[in-house]
């Protein structure tokens, strides 16, 4: 059984709560028309990003998905910079040039949300190759959705990571839907059998249970760090919102979202677990809730008043030199 310090648990709760509040607030603000473009929210899936990234530091890299805000926060990206980026502001994390689907911070080992489904797995193979070649001790984690799990890039990356014996971990976040299409229909075979077919250890976890994710992730990441090659984790979880903001979600069963929020909320499950076992107290968690609410409120205020990029910004950052 994985042993976590109180500091670890407090940080994990803080990050999960930060993701939830961030996404809930982006959902609200998007509806007012202030946020441009396409936004895909991670609320409901927090235990996966945080349970995995708990074991990573800045020398470790992650590749993310369309639904990348949670991975950014879990990897330690600056929340105000993220909010400004989503608003397309000049001092956003990517200067307002990336937006929600391309949000990244390489200095934190966050290699980007990705606008291309299945775009990330080859890239994290590269990060893992760098770690292996330069002997940094780092590992690389590729988050993919159930949709991306059917892309050739993902399956090719499983194979390449295996034959190159890369320090890589693939985390399939299976929220039940690729856009509107059920993963129960779209995934042939099973995620675990796919791992087995490529000669990788695989584990299926309840993605709403932070502790289950964290334990499986530690095993996989330790194995990668020890030079024992790639692993796969299949996290079954739910998204609280639609594929993107504005999705009427007519493909869901009646009452499905309300039921998910009531029964499978990873934050509620976490709070219940740590308070019942006496690891943390409600008061500590309530305090974090307050601090996070203030942080997110401040981030939105800052983003709303931040400056837009200028005409000069249009032409910079294409090349290092040209």
């Amino acid at each position, binding site marked *: 059984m994985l042993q976590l310090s109180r500091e670890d648990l407090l940080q994990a709760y803080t990050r999960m709560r930060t993701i939830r509040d961030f996404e809930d607030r982006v959902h609200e603000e998007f509806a007012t028309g202030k946020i441009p473009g396409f936004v895909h929210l991670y609320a409901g899936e927090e235990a996966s990003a945080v349970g995995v990234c708990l074991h990573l530091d800045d020398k470790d890299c992650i590749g993310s998905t369309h639904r990348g805000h949670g991975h950014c926060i879990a990897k330690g990206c600056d929340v105000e910079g993220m909010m400004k980026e989503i608003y397309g502001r000049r001092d956003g*994390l990517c200067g307002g040039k990336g937006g929600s689907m391309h949000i990244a911070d*390489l200095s934190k080992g966050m290699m980007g949300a990705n606008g*291309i489904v299945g775009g990330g797995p080859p890239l994290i193979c*590269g990060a893992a*190759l760098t770690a292996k070649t*330069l002997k940094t001790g780092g590992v690389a984690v590729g988050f993919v959705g159930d949709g991306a799990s059917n892309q050739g890039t993902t399956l090719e990356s499983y194979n390449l990571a295996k034959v190159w014996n890369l320090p890589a971990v693939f985390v399939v976040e299976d929220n039940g839907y690729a856009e509107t299409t059920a993963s129960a229909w779209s995934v042939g075979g099973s995620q675990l059998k796919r791992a087995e077919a490529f000669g990788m250890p695989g584990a299926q976890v309840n993605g709403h249970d932070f502790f289950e994710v964290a334990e499986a992730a530690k095993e996989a990441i330790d194995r990668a760090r020890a030079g024992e090659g790639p692993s796969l984790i299949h996290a079954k979880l739910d998204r609280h919102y639609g594929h993107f903001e504005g999705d009427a979600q007519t493909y869901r069963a009646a009452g499905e979202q309300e039921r998910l929020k009531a029964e499978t909320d990873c934050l509620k499950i976490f709070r219940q677990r740590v308070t019942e076992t006496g690891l943390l107290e409600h008061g500590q968690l309530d305090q974090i809730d307050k601090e996070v609410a203030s942080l997110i409120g401040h981030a939105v205020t800052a983003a709303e008043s931040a400056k837009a990029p200028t005409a000069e910004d249009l032409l910079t950052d294409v090349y290092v030199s040209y």
Partner: protein
Amino acid sequence: MAKKSYRQAINEALAQEMRRDPTVIVMGEDNAGGLGSPGEDDAWGGVLGVTKGLMPEFGRERVLDTPITESAFIGAAAGAAATGLRPVAELMFVDFMGVCFDQIFNQAGKFRYMFGGKAVTPLVVRTMYGAGFRAASQHSQCLYPIFTHTPGLKVVLPSSPYEAKGLLIQAIRDDDPVIFFEHKVMYDDEEEVPDEPYTIPFGEANLTREGDDVTIVALGRMVGMANQVADTLEKDGISCTVIDPRTTSPLDSDTILECAEETGRVVVVDEASPRCNMATDISALIAENCFGALKAPIKMVTPPHTPVPFAPELEDLYIPNPEKIEAAVRAVATYER
């Protein structure tokens, strides 16, 4: 100075850069060859022997053979470049871009812009192009216009062994993603190539001939043909400037426009398919900027708008050749309003 082939020049550039910088690695299908096989190691050194000898010197940690999985390893090269290595990945034939283009143009080519100028992606993709090998439609295309079209990528077309060595060393030292096009018909071409490492800057065209009457802009393998035509026509009193742009992105538009202004008569020779290729792009550039100086319509010498055919008779008809270039130059040189 020793004579070296285009193949040797490229091999020497790779070896010298790998000796200089331990973060330079090469990867690709059979770049060494024979991995896990019962016979010879370093069996091929790439399908046409360009990387032969690198693995014995640098080991399999820095000369990585890959499965046939272009999407994964070109993407891995992009990811490795963004995190601290200088990978030179070999996309065996550029025709195979169809199975990995996303990783080049949506990922590597856009990191820097999408991430607000914070990404540095020193990736080189070496790839073979061009017709003349009887290799048919899926192993003979040029396709460099498609890469040139993509902001964030640099595109290099070395036209000789000397050019190949200097431009490849520049490509490896460059901090942006570079697509390096090697014409498969040129690997055995020879010329004097210095032993020591040297670089040729990107975006600076090379005037391989200088003349007063007609400007010929030629790309890659077409440069040699244009030189041959210029030498022939010189004897007939038509003197030509031949411009080798060396890189299509960045493109040295200043030199092209200066020469077009001077001669007022222009032929562009491009082996790529004729719609939206470099010939149309360069012609538009000249038409937009030098309209008043033009004494004749710009002529483009390109293949027809067909896939590259297999039968030798058809392929020979397909590829631009000195006769077609000469006819175009003569027509432009003698044109009167």
